[in-house]
């Protein structure tokens, strides 16, 4: 008897679903080893995490709130990833969204207070789009490597935001952070901590799913991602679509940043570079770039973060253990993705 790995004649739909699920279970097992090595009972630790993430209404709300920017960043980078355009600059685009809304809130005094929020969100989207559009344009026009440009621009954005909230935009009282936004311009709550950004995120899921799977544009993106030469030969403009996809990608990440700022911190301050943009990359990948699957993945990743707080309180483990567990999610997934295109076949040796 022996096993052989054989190519499937089609991508298996069942496997596309099973692989992430099984990978996640494997990552829990790997996490258990890490936890056991830290001298805690893995079952208790996971129990504490589940309790921390979903145990009370308030904790559940926190988890949802945390998952909203993750979901949006995942959706944003996912669009670029369809083109095999490696936008790892979601963090910077998110920060520009936060800067954009702060700018409107703080300085656009000519606007009525009720208009601050919608205008701020739009400006945040626009700045995010520009920040992503630049690497897109550089790639389309001169084939400048986008992994470098998008990554580097993150640090420019982080540095610039620091400059703003430590220096020129700083509130007169206190040593960092801009003044708080007027309360009437906060993103309204819909259930305790959960803010109405949830509706925007979910609407975006539906819109993107439709755009990517049902429209001609989605079909074109798919062609470019899988064979750019063939796409060009079929009359699809690659340059135009790279820039367009990056503008949309950046706009969504920017919206995530401006929305989250208007909902939670209500000002630009330390912690705006919370890593949502980077975790968004994992989410897009785990969800197989599928917008609906991204919802589940975003909630799981958020739960790992919020649950880690409880890990600290109940098990006396460092909170960074949550980040370790998040990272472990990706490894089995990447290893397991071979099974969507291949199958394991058992061959019984025949008597000769």
């Amino acid at each position: 008897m022996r096993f052989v790995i054989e190519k499937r004649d089609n991508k298996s739909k069942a496997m596309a679903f099973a692989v992430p699920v099984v990978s996640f279970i494997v990552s829990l097992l790997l996490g258990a080893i890490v936890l056991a090595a830290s001298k805690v009972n893995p079952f208790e630790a996971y129990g504490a995490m589940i309790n921390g993430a979903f145990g009370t209404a308030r904790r559940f709300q926190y988890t949802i709130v945390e998952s909203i920017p993750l979901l949006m960043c995942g959706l944003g980078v996912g669009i670029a990833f369809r083109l095999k355009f490696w936008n790892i600059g979601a963090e910077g685009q998110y920060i520009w969204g936060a800067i954009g809304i702060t700018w409107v809130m703080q300085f656009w005094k000519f606007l009525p207070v009720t208009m601050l929020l919608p205008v701020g969100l739009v400006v945040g989207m626009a700045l995010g789009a520009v920040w992503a559009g630049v690497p897109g344009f550089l790639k389309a026009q001169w084939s400048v490597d986008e992994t470098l440009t998008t990554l580097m621009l993150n640090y420019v954005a982080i540095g610039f935001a620091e400059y703003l909230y430590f220096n020129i935009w700083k509130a007169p009282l206190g040593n960092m952070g801009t003044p708080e936004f007027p309360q009437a311009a906060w993103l309204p709550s819909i259930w305790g901590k959960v803010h109405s950004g949830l509706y925007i995120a979910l609407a975006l899921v539906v819109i993107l799913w439709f755009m990517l799977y049902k429209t001609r544009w989605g079909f074109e993106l798919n062609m470019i991602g899988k064979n750019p030469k063939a796409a060009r030969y079929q009359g699809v403009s690659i340059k135009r679509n790279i820039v367009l996809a990056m503008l949309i990608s950046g706009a969504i990440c920017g919206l995530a940043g401006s929305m989250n700022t208007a909902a939670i911190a209500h000002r630009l301050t330390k912690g705006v570079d919370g890593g949502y943009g980077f975790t968004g990359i994992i989410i897009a990948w785990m969800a197989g770039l599928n917008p609906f699957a991204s919802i589940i993945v975003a909630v799981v990743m958020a739960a790992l973060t919020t649950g880690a707080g409880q890990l600290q309180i109940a098990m006396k483990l460092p909170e960074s253990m949550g980040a370790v567990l998040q990272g472990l999610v990706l490894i089995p997934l990447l290893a397991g993705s071979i099974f969507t295109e291949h199958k394991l076949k058992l061959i019984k040796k025949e008597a000769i």
Partner: protein
Amino acid sequence: MNDNTQQIPVVRMENITKHFPGVLANDNVSLELYPGQVLALLGENGAGKSTLMNMLVGLYRPDSGTIHVRGQLAEIHSPQDSMALGIGMIHQEFMLVGNMTVAENIVLGLKDLPLVPKIPEIRARITELSKRYGLQVDPDAVIHDLSVGEQQRVEILKLVYRGADILILDEPTAVLTPGESRDLNKILKKMLGEGKSAIFITHKMDEVIEFSHKVQVLRRGKTVNICDTKDVTPQDLANMMVGRDILFSLDRCPFNPGGVKLKVDHVVVENPSGPRPVLDDVSLEIHRGEIVGIAGVAGNGQQQLTEVITGLMRCNKGKVYIDGVDMTNTTPLNVIKAGVSHIPADRGAMGVVGDMSVGENLAMKKYRTNEISKGMVMKRSFMRSFADKLIKAFVIKTPTQDTSVKFLSGGNIQKTILAREIDSCGGILIAVYPSRGLDVGATEAVRQNIIAQRDRGNAVLLVSEELEELQMVADKIAVMFEGRIMGIRNVKETNTEELGMMMAGAVPTRRNA
């Protein structure tokens, strides 16, 4: 060769069966090869020839069946195993490192190579082997400076250097000029004299006759016939291969061209890295209801000419007109909208998206139209019935329309492209090497479809390396050499000699016309 049957075969494959997803690639196939013999393995694309040989060199494992080498049961798990048994294969795509020398390539991957190889010894051995078999190659030449024929010699040397005495050649002449093919034949003859033997995968009948002692014909994974080469004619072999009579001449309407459809006017494409332009003052007119063939050795500007017309490549000077409208350096989309269909030379890299389904690939031209979309929204149900219609009309062999194109055989990938381009053709068809690498049945289908376009009043530009194909299909033939058009002739008023001279760069003086 009756005495051969007294000997022990060097290779005996018995009742080999191999499944691939959705395909039975080899169904109970047996094969015997005797010392000093060339066995031709003949069959259409997807008949299972390459699969069978890949099992002999350990790239695949048979699902069932046994392999004996020199009378011994052999378990071949990898190319290393087969090499140890003296079996070596030369694949269609050469496996050479372009920026390394011949000698380096030959010893690359040798297990007993010392940390610091003794280059002079290796070079001496290579020189000795190349003298022995007439495989002239400079051991110090860098691979990407060599012609395709020379690279193939390096591949043969690589195997001989490793002590292979059973050679498997997968379509070895597909990339060679006629002269190089003759050299290859001589080299093989010398090796056979020393008791080596060879298996030759091909679908060209004349090669079977020229090279082999015995021929085994495969069809859809099964052996159809095994016979001595001297007892068969090309026509017999063709019939065995496809299981029906082949038309060697094609039906067509009388030549009755209409107005000018496509006009290429003094087009120049500069070459920044070479001595002469890629396209040098090329002018050409194609009328409605006319097939203009472009003859020439590959790499003389044919492909660039088609890419300038289709908007994929910019030209530096000159004009392209479609229906009298200036379409010079416009976008590929505008060219498509002007009704131009294009069967590209590189079908895998450009013609299809391998990871998308057959249905989606068929829709890649028409997805912008009402046949498949309503406004910006694509209708899956429209696409499904559209694809089913084309799969049926063009007899594309695929398990379902949801199968990824990359799982189809070369011939069926080409049929997919052909179906899409012919269905969407709006006046001009540009076909570049459309029958390259296809078997007799598929080639015939391609040619008949091209002629049907002409009969329907479309203008056709056909680029081909085979003069015979052009003479069979085209109305006029333009010959390209070093980026220039050497001359344009009516098929009926020219002959192979004249065209051949022009292909070699000579401008023949015309007989009173």
